[in-house]
């Protein structure tokens, strides 16, 4: 019997040491290159990932911050309906631009993770992951490990992802987008522009609000002009 208690004590000590070691070495850390503001800014010509056809008569640009809870709420609750009713029907093309707020510690890092996933054609999958598991934004803990898990779930190759994050490959692109938002007087997230015109809402808009706006824009917009090819087809030159 006494021998059993000795075994129990030894096991407890060993496990305690193991847990302590795991906690000590569990750092990881968000790559400074991906998480911080880059020293220089360059325009690489990128203007955001888009959903919807390029021929849509209405383009909505959303400036978002991945750490912003309202953005997460909008993405998870309103966007599915907007996608179904406005984007998939060809009425709207939705453009996503980054606007990491300075009050958020990991929003740049999250935006960078999304961009690195986007480089592999997985931007929207990663965006979904970041917003659907948004508790990371409330814990204040380093989310680098979680983001790797989310990237993997999103179908991202982790070797390329790790290299991209370590290098901070898209830090300048994200900063360019933020400065672009500043120039357009973006003052919070999410902020929306419809065909370049800033939308003002007193509350977080819902899918119904966007439906009204889009229908209104389409109703008041001039009919689409035929393309040059259509013109030639309609009026063939002799």
């Amino acid at each position, binding site marked *: 019997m006494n021998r059993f208690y000795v075994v129990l004590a030894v096991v407890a000590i060993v496990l305690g040491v193991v847990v302590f070691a795991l906690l000590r070495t*569990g*750092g990881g850390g968000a790559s400074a290159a991906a998480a911080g503001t880059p020293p220089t800014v360059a325009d690489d010509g990128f203007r955001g990932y888009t959903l919807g056809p390029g021929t849509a008569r209405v383009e909505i640009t959303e400036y978002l911050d991945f750490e912003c809870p309202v953005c997460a709420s909008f993405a998870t609750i309103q966007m599915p309906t907007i996608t179904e009713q406005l984007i998939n029907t060809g009425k709207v093309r939705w453009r996503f631009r980054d606007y990491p707020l300075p009050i958020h510690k990991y929003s740049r890092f999250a935006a960078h993770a999304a961009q690195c996933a986007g480089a592999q054609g997985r931007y929207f999958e990663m965006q979904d992951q970041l917003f659907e598991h948004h508790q990371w934004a409330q814990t204040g803990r380093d989310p680098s490990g979680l983001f790797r*898990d989310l990237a993997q779930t999103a179908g991202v190759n982790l070797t390329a992802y790790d290299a991209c994050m370590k290098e901070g490959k898209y830090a300048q692109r994200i900063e360019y987008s933020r400065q672009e938002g500043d120039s357009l007087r973006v003052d919070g997230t999410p902020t929306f522009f419809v065909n370049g015109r800033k939308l003002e809402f007193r509350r977080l808009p819902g899918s119904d609000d966007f439906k009204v706006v889009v229908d209104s824009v389409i109703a008041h917009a001039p009919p689409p002009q035929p393309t040059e090819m259509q013109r030639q087809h309609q009026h063939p030159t002799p």
Partner: protein
Amino acid sequence: MRYRQAIALLALVGCFVALYLWLHALGYGGAIKCGGSGGCEAVQTSPWAVFLGLPVAFFGVAGYFTLLVVAVAALRPAALAQRGWNTVLALLASIGFLFTGYLTYLEFFVIHALCRWCVGSAVIMTAIWIVAVLSVRSPVLRTDRGASPPPPDPQA
């Protein structure tokens, strides 16, 4: 006695597994050690990682610790022959087993991410439950040879 010792040992291991997850949930130690494809963070940061306002791992620590204390109490010489301890242990293990089953269901079908630590905990709790059920079904005297009376002498 062997059953109770096994439960105590398993509960001790489970307690440390849950302790690690709980401390991580409290913000200690940075990124969780979960292997390359763990999904532990996804599970730990999901809405189901909090139960009654507390990290789920806290209930794991509390549950395993309770099992450990009861199992050790049941190993006292005075308690060895008392079958009631087996019932208490089986009851506690059943509660833990059901809770673990619910959490595993969430991982597979709701969160769609698997945490290796949680799977490890589920295996430990399942093992505790099996041992506890076996201890209820087995006669006390057969589980503790030292406390069993000597067999009757056929010559007598």
